[in-house]
């Protein structure tokens, strides 16, 4: 049996165990918004509203942002608890009776929760946003508005945006890895005290260094990680605004794929950062601590 098959089975296990929760989190906002749509009778199209095609594209963007944002937040919230999940339900003995290593098991968990499910949420959000955008257009301007939307342009721009954000999600995971792996390691070793101790330690150490030694290194490091993550996700070189200002809505769609490609390149360039490398070293150390704790549990 290949390592690939074993690893994909471990990822399938994550899907089996968490799929209901994940799907509920992904579906809840679109479903609520769709349900609320028919009842909002006061809504009217603003006087300087963008063209219908851009309007529909905004729906896709908002859908992706909302569904991804909620799913990613929930996934990050869950990550610390995953470090001891199999010990807590005693199933670790079962998993360890099968030919899969601790490293494979933990890696599959992290990969699914931190990367693949948020990526799936982006796709679900895009699809839901498309439906919601169309629904809002119909609500505001009538069914005829759907005919004035260039759906081909919306779909191609939406797909480009989805690809850019999915790639950004990969880079964001690298930037955020030290934070969620620190939380996982803390939870693995300190159990329920892990997260509060970690957060408390960051606040205390950060403030002590900042206030008493005039050294805000903790805040700077964290700020660098979050800023790196934000740029990795979208608009790495802060050029989106220029694109819109220079070309207007009409040319925006045609120039968007080229911009997205350049933006992805800029995000990759920003990986050459000591903050990222240092963070990944910390994350790797925390990963090893989670594995060590798991080994001791058996």
């Amino acid at each position, binding site marked *: 049996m290949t390592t690939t098959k074993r690893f994909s089975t471990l990822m*399938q296990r994550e899907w*089996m*165990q968490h799929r209901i929760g994940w799907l509920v989190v992904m579906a809840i906002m679109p479903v609520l918004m769709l349900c609320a749509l028919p009842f909002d009778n006061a809504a009217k199209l603003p006087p300087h509203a963008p063209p219908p095609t851009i309007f529909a594209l905004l729906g896709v963007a908002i859908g992706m942002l909302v569904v991804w944002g909620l799913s990613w937040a929930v996934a990050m919230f869950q990550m610390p608890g995953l470090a001891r999940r199999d010990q807590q339900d*005693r*199933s670790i003995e079962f998993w*360890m*009776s099968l*030919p899969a290593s601790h490293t494979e098991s933990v890696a599959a968990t992290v990969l699914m929760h931190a990367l693949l499910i948020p990526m799936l949420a982006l796709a679900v959000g895009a699809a839901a946003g498309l439906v919601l955008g169309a629904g809002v257009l119909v609500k505001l301007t009538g069914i005829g508005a759907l005919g004035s939307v260039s759906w081909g342009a919306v779909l191609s721009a939406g797909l480009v945006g989805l690809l850019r954000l999915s790639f950004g999600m990969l880079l964001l995971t690298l930037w955020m890895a030290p934070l969620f792996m620190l939380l996982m390691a803390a939870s693995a070793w300190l159990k329920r005290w892990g997260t509060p101790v970690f957060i408390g330690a960051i606040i205390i150490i950060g403030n002590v260094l900042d206030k008493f030694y005039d050294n805000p290194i903790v805040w700077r490091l964290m700020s660098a990680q979050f800023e790196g993550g934000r740029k990795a996700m979208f608009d790495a070189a802060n050029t989106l605004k220029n694109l819109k200002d220079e070309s207007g809505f009409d040319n925006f769609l045609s120039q968007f794929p080229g911009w997205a490609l350049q933006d992805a390149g800029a995000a990759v360039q920003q990986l050459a950062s000591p903050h990222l490398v240092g963070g990944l070293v910390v994350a790797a150390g925390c990963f090893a601590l989670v594995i060590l704790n798991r080994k001791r549990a*058996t």
Partner: protein
Amino acid sequence: MNNDNNNLIEASGFTLRYGRKTAVDNLTFHVPKGRVVGLLGHNGAGKTSLMKAMVGLHGGTGSLKVLGLDPMAQRAELLESMSYIPDVAVLPRWARVHELITLMSGLQPKFSAERARKLLKRTSVTENDKVKSLSKGMVTQLHLALIAAIDSKLMILDEPTLGLDVMSRKSFYEMLIDEWCDGERSVIISTHQVEEIESLLSDVMMLDEGKLVLNLSLEEMDSRFVALAHDPAAADAVADAHPLLRYRQQGRPAALFDGAPPAHLDGLGQRFRPSLVDLFMALTRKPEMQRQQA
């Protein structure tokens, strides 16, 4: 146990420690193919530690080879070729039975989903059942059906029927013997329910405080150990012969000897075959015997 070139397990001077505590002390033994071995011992005797060492979950000093592999260094490779039930109630409670079959198919190369489904038909468990909805006995049956569907040469069962009622225990062992043991495969079972599995075993290993105090086949046990039921009046004469254990058998005093009792006792009682439980009591209670075996 007979020496054999086809040993599935070979241990030589194997010792396992947790800090200062010695869990398994200088064990030397081998398990050939086609045997059903009972691993007996009191709580804390080292049974689970030894079994975990056999599946690569704990390392020790000395030599331990399972299926010709080093369990610690070649754990993944080893687990592809053996079946292991670590304890009862360790199946993930969120999973449905068909999901477990899917997962086992992906993780265990010698697992047959078709055979697992066939084995499940012997039980009252259905493929759509969730583990958390099953009784303890049903979970154990399910676990056995899953690991018996692995085409392996060796199965290791650590207290597989702990906490189960007598019907569930009987069903478990029936399935094990009927569906898995074929004369080529070997099973090592650790249990406290000695009397229930005695008829299934071909060999017995007894651990006491980490030491192997007995390791022999049941045929050898029958020829080596002799019990003598006697009248109360003969108690002093029997005691003078230093039996391993003095106890009561069907209301009569009895004594258990390692080897034939002295000839002068033959007329004082009737010989009979000692049970495994009596032998277990004798060997794990008697310090002289333990020192001799060690």
